[in-house]
């Protein structure tokens, strides 16, 4: 049940006062990944990007924080939130990321 269901169930009487949302980052429950038409594939055929921590341009520029830095030196593309914009693919200096049609 997302916060939207929770707040819907509350009815008008029990909503938090003043139109606030009473806890942080509730948007995490909204998966923008459903917007994707293309999906980024990193190191599809070859491990071109082997030392992400030395670069991290894709991680830094991703508008949706959909690329996670994973210990000790790996990247993880979070398909819950990636909107498939293609910025990472275009900006990657090694061209290690390709955009592929979403099935």
């Amino acid at each position, binding site marked *: 049940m997302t*916060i*939207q269901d*929770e*707040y819907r169930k509350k009815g008008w009487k029990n909503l938090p006062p003043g*139109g606030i*949302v009473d806890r*942080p*980052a*509730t*948007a*995490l*429950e*909204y*998966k*923008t990944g459903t*917007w994707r038409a293309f999906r980024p594939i990193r190191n599809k055929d070859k491990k071109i990007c082997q030392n992400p*921590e*030395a*670069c*991290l*341009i894709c*991680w*830094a*520029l*991703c*508008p*949706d*924080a*959909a690329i*996670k*830095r994973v210990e000790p030196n790996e990247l993880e593309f*979070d398909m*819950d*939130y990636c*909107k*498939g*914009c*293609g*910025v990472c*693919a*275009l*900006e990657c200096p090694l061209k290690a990321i390709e*955009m592929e049609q979403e099935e």
Partner: protein
Amino acid sequence: MADYPTRLADLPKEERSVSSGHRLCTGCAAGTIARLVGKAVPDKPLIWVNATCCMEVATTIYPFAAWHIPWLHNAFENTAATASGVRAGLDMLMKKGRVPERDIEVIAIGGDGGTYDIGIQAISGAIERGHDFVYICYDNEAYMNTGIQRSGATMHAAWTTTSPAGEVVLGKKEFKKPLLRIVAAHGLEYCATASVSHPLDFVRKVKRAVDVKGPAFVHVIQPCLRGWRFDTSESFQVARLAVESRFFPLYEVYHGYKYVLNYPNPALSKVPIEDYLKNQGRLRHLFRPEKNQEIINIIQEHVDLEWEKLLELAEFSEKSAIY
């Protein structure tokens, strides 16, 4: 000099300001801007005061709020005034011991419309009063939240829905308002231009602004794929061209007087403005059905003139002994 991140890896891994799940357009660099501000000051708790704008609307659709930090929106034209109140409230509550003494930074952020036009009075007042806060203007050169209407930030000749490329009038008649010089004229300790294409430079400037005890201002260019009509992947590439073509040079102004140029390097040969304009749909009418060299030249001359002024100001500042 305080230590500033020199590598992206220096930036904290975790998200400290905006969270995933916001509904900015696919590929919108405003999301990146909000993320980087949070990462620029990893050790300082932030309170975020947002103007009515794309970033505000798209990140907080009730009851979904994409913020890890206390987030406040009031209205469109009063972000700096609202931030002044937040600052004053915090200061006095701390002074009276009602809340623990903490080095909380108040971030005020708005789009170009909310900063150049309707919000400039509140900003001028807040800077003049010397409140300790950072104002960030993310500039996508039109009222994008309401569907791409022309603002004071829109460049000359650009199409918007209220400065259409018509048979008689070709896009916006006026030139982009020199916002940073207007802000600098207040004599505040620090203000700077930045670009999403230069993330480390932007982060350094946000941190520099936060370190100022008093008002500071960062004006970051953020090309808008919907309003400028280019592909969802190209926001940062277009921003880079804006800087390299000297259309939007990156510089800092100390005490409203000393100009320090960051990018592009004056020694590099100029990227012709045409390269910046040509793959933006909002300027298509300058290329099709046939190229309008006259207007392109006018834009180039204006860019060159502004660039020369900036070089002189930077040169003069270097020689000046005042700061």
